[in-house]
């Protein structure tokens, strides 16, 4: 249980893991933004190929990566159904009341499903190849310009760092408290919703009391280690942009090229339309 938080990180020491976290964060953001402009199967195909090749280079097992999709499976199914029956696109093949199915609606639903899946897979790859610590550093570094508007970038970074540090500890503690109350006959997973909510009290109160106790000692420890001593706080970790990041950027650049040009040059969607249409008729 205590490994869940860091469990997302899948250490393989690959080139993707060694990339500058800032580059990865920026690429992931670009990846997310770009996907909303993709509206062709060529584009989705290119996206899928990109995810697949990054996964291979990162040496993350495909199965592990696909596990991250589990959480959105229901959503994907729901959106697909809505799109198949309610889109009202194209010539209906089948119609009942307000529901209709057409080749266009089928294809549209497939695109929506692909979009959501790819939307999840990209950031998942980021978390599989980047430690939370590196992510914090990257975000802090990317937020640096905000210092100009007096935004406390440094404090926010320390808060994020402490939060990350404390999550596994607090999870361990939650686990221990749950076991201890179970040992006193508490049942946490039976009864109706009210009973279950009430059963949380013996867990949450000790957890909060414990968190306050920890916070007190942590505050002392921060003071003892001269937090806020110097206005010119220095940094231990220096992020460096290297050749790997260049490779990553170029790979992503090719994706953009394929997405933009592919949609224009090839009438891939038309071919698929014909294929599906001939199949359903």
């Amino acid at each position, binding site marked *: 249980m205590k490994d869940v938080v860091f469990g997302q990180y899948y250490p393989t020491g690959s080139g993707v893991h060694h990339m500058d976290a800032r580059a990865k964060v920026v690429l992931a953001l670009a990846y997310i933004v770009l996907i909303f402009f993709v509206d062709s199967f060529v584009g989705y195909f290119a996206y899928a190929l990109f995810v697949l090749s990054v996964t291979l280079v990162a040496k993350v097992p495909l199965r592990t990566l696909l596990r991250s999709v589990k959480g959105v499976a229901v959503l994907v199914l729901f959106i697909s159904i809505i799109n198949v029956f309610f889109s009202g696109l194209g010539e209906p093949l089948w119609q009942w009341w307000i529901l209709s199915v057409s080749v266009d609606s089928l294809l549209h639903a497939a695109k929506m499903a692909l979009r959501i899946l790819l939307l999840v897979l990209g950031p998942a790859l980021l978390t599989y190849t980047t430690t939370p610590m590196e992510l914090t550093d990257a975000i802090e570094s990317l937020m640096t310009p905000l210092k100009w508007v007096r935004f406390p970038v440094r404090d926010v970074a320390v808060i994020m760092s402490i939060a990350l540090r404390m999550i596994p500890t607090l999870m361990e503690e939650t686990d221990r408290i749950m*076991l201890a*109350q179970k040992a006193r*006959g508490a*049942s946490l997973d039976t009864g109706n919703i009210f009973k279950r909510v009430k059963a949380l009290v013996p*867990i949450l109160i000790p957890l909060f009391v414990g968190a306050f106790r920890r916070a007190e000692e942590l505050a002392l420890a921060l003071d003892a280690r001269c937090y806020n001593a110097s206005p010119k706080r220095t940094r231990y970790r220096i992020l460096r942009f290297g050749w790997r990041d260049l490779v990553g950027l170029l790979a992503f650049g090719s994706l953009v090229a394929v997405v933009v040009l592919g949609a224009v040059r090839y009438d891939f969607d038309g071919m698929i339309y014909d294929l599906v249409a001939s199949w359903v008729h």
Partner: protein
Amino acid sequence: MSIEVEGLGYTYMKKSPYEKRALDNVSFRVEEGEFVAVVGQTGSGKSTLMQHLNGLIKLTEGKIKVDDIDLTARRPDYKRLRFLVGMVFQYPEYQLFDETVAKDVGFGCRNAGLSAEETEDRVRQAIALVGLDYDEIADRSPFELSGGQKRRVAIAGVVAMRPKVLILDEPTAGLDPVGRREIMEMVLSLHRTVCPTVLMVSHDMEAVAEYCDRVLVLSHGTLAYDATPAALFAKGEQLRDMGLDTPASVQLSTRLRQNGWDVPLCLTPKALAEAIAKALEGSR
């Protein structure tokens, strides 16, 4: 009333990069009335073993039978098991949550569905058994008590469930010497009165030597020794390899014996001092 463990094994986070074998082929039997110490380095599998005994960890490998409850059965009666085997975790005071001491101590009884009168009876008795004054403490908030009192209240919460077996995970951790001695005396009196069988995880070999009848030594998930304190501590060197201390009295008496002194292997300072005095008298 006995505990039988046979071929017990356990692996954490099976089939993941973090897989860890915690217990391997552990077998032993504890009879009613025994005061057993469970020792071993941190990470040797002590907690995993203890949590199996009252069903907090589901049995996956091997057999466990506590009294007439067979944990290999398809649906073992975990609820009854948890009242038969009381478990006091390390730093138990960190689990206190209720508004008053009496309510907190009665938590287990209420979970068992006992009547209000029965619960109050048991709470009264449990608070007395851990050496606190019911009238003085019952209506106070557990959070305003001293560290030592909190720990007693937490132990009372388990004692009130009237378990036949009491499992304690390092009950004296973090206490000062007076607190340690008081808690050990309390555990001993519980052992003699209401909870005949006691299993205690401990790192304090002096306490193990002084209070326990039998010691189980875990090392890397296996049961390395199952012996009386005297027989166990006679193995000094091998214990050190497992990261365990030997009580000073045992070390000294062993060396004196090797040097031809007529003293038995002594477990406590008092026993050793008396043995030395006797040996000196004899030689004069």
